[in-house]
């Protein structure tokens, strides 16, 4: 059996259910692959891992993948699992914020570490400075959790539809106390979880073959997870080495993640070219400090997924 290593972007959770399901249900075995899934974490940068040869495929978000590509690590998107973005900015209603016009002078929590680009683009679009100067917004580097909002240290924080938002709810906030700004709605959304590999890998037909098998089994896993959510959650929990994840939370997460898979007529994981173009445009329009300065070439390919659908 062929060995293959997958590096996740974050810790074991339902966000990655498809891969765990594929492994647990034997979908990888079926295509003759022995897949190792490496969980990520706050300081694991998947691109760095793959550049160092620590993985064959990584799950990453397109903004950071493209930024990395400009740094000389030739990442190529071989499948786009989440069709739409799950990112949003969630504000407390009692802070007095009603629309994006109220942002200036407010404190906004933002994830950094490659996840800040969509936010910066948005603010750029709105014409708000983020460097702390007058008339702009005050940006905090948001840490691991939603505490800043709960404790009113920030007026708004970044959340994912499938994760932090529900943590706020679990912490006792009511949906009607919260105001959300979905990036999709603000037209600054960028593509999130996708599968990336190195350009060099794709030059080798045998590797392409292998990747196609991997994508096939993974997508099968995702579809299974979407259709059997309770079972998928169980599998995720079993794979969680910290033993800290709760079933309630993972179930909600699974539900929300399933929505992001979308239903592309060309199949799960198909990269939509217009969405790609939109992401690239967003990334290049970063004002004085764009994420990427020139249009990437050959940053994606449909070869692998096409091959996988023919298997």
């Amino acid at each position, binding site marked *: 059996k062929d060995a293959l290593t997958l590096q996740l972007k974050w810790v074991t959770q339902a966000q990655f259910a498809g891969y765990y399901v594929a492994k647990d249900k034997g979908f990888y075995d079926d295509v003759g692959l022995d897949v190792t899934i490496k969980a990520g974490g*706050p*300081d694991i*940068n998947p*691109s*760095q891992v793959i*550049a*160092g040869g620590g993985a064959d495929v990584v799950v990453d978000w397109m903004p*950071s993948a493209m*930024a*990395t590509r400009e*740094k*000389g*690590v030739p990442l190529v998107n071989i499948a786009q699992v989440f069709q739409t973005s799950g990112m949003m900015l969630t504000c407390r209603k009692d802070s007095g914020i009603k629309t994006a016009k109220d942002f200036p002078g407010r404190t906004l929590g933002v994830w*950094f*570490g*490659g*996840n*800040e680009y969509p936010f910066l683009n948005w603010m750029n679009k709105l014409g708000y400075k*983020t*460097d*702390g100067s007058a008339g702009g917004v*005050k*940006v*905090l*580097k*948001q*840490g*691991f*959790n939603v*505490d*800043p909002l709960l*404790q009113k*240290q920030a007026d708004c924080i970044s959340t994912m539809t499938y994760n932090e938002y529900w943590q706020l709810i679990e912490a006792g906030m009511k949906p009607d106390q919260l105001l959300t700004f979905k990036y999709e709605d603000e037209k600054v959304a960028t593509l999130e979880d996708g599968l990336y590999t190195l350009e060099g890998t794709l030059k080798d037909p045998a590797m392409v073959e292998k990747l196609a098998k991997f994508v096939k089994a993974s997508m099968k896993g995702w579809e299974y997870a979407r259709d059997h959510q309770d079972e998928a959650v169980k599998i995720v929990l079993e794979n969680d080495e910290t033993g800290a994840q709760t079933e309630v939370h993972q179930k909600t997460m699974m539900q929300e993640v399933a929505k992001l898979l979308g239903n592309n007529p060309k199949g799960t994981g198909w990269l939509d070219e217009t969405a790609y173009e939109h992401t690239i445009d967003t990334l290049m329009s970063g004002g004085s400090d764009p994420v990427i300065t020139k249009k990437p070439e050959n940053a994606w390919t449909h070869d692998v997924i096409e091959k996988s659908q023919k298997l």
Partner: protein
Amino acid sequence: MASPVLKRWLLPGLTIAILITALLLPVGYYEDDYAFWWQFPLSALFIVIGILGAVLGAVWGPKPGPGGIWAFLGPLILLLASFGPVLLPMAELDIHLAGSGIWLAILGLLLFAWQIMQHLTRQPRSLLWAILVPLIFGLCLIYLWQAIVVGFEVPQVLLPSPTQIVQAIIRNWPVLMDDFRQTFLKAVIAGFILGNALAFITALLVDRIPFLQRGLLPLGNLVSAVPIVGIAPIMVMWFGFGWESKTAVIVFMIFFPMLINALTGLAAADAMLKDLMRSYGAGYWQTLLSLRLPVAMPFIFNALKINSTLALIGAIVAEFFGSPIAGMGFRISVEVARMNVDVVWATIAIAALAGSIFYGLLAVLERAVTFWHPSYRSQ
């Protein structure tokens, strides 16, 4: 035991032999064939200068004498000779496996550097040598780092080369200075002063009140073992995203080393000296000021020095858990994710420099305060 003659000539002889051998070996692979030094006359010339230097050093170096021109000439020749291997990669050679000549030359140059350091160490104590010796050592490390990164084509995202780091420092100077102000000038200084002061006062209390000694100290051990990575998020939760939470983390981190050292120091006074104080009927404060504090000073400085590095680490680590958008920890975590590893290392370099200067100042102060301690007297 080896004869003195052998001892005297072993290292110089080895150095010269290695450098000469290096000249005969290929330096890399170029257009499908081995390349040799003589195809790169300038590089070869520098190595030859190095060999001549090593020979001169072998003859002059060990001679005693204050200063001695070799103390100045040696580093100079070393600097020149080091250009030999540095120039080669510019010729777009494939060095990493084929370049046995280049690697051997580097080894020889490092040995040469060691001898120069040995010679400088024998010079009478002065600030010049006290700085020059570690400087040469550090330059050697950096040189080796550069050689390996360039020679083995280590990807920049894993480990940038020193030259790339220097470029990043220059490029990002204003940003890096802002970060420095935020992290060092605000959080570290405040935390360092506050933490050490609190720990010291606690040590005095604990030393004074036996009840505390028995009640608080076992718990002190407990608290000290709480990792900062657990504390940092809590402190951010309690004290906000600004520098105050970093200061709190630092206080927490450096408390234990100071407490333990201060307590050990306060108990370290020689029995007879304590008896003398007793015989004067000296009060607690008098004994403390005249006897126990001076005796405790070496221990207290030990803690201060350890804490100076801990404080910096603490502040940087705490910034990983929430910060405004400035600060060295913020910069590192953000730029790692952006794959700007050169900026990361630029920040690390500044942190290391600031920390070393901080430590150095403490060391100077220590020498002034505890000049009487045998560890200084003997030198």
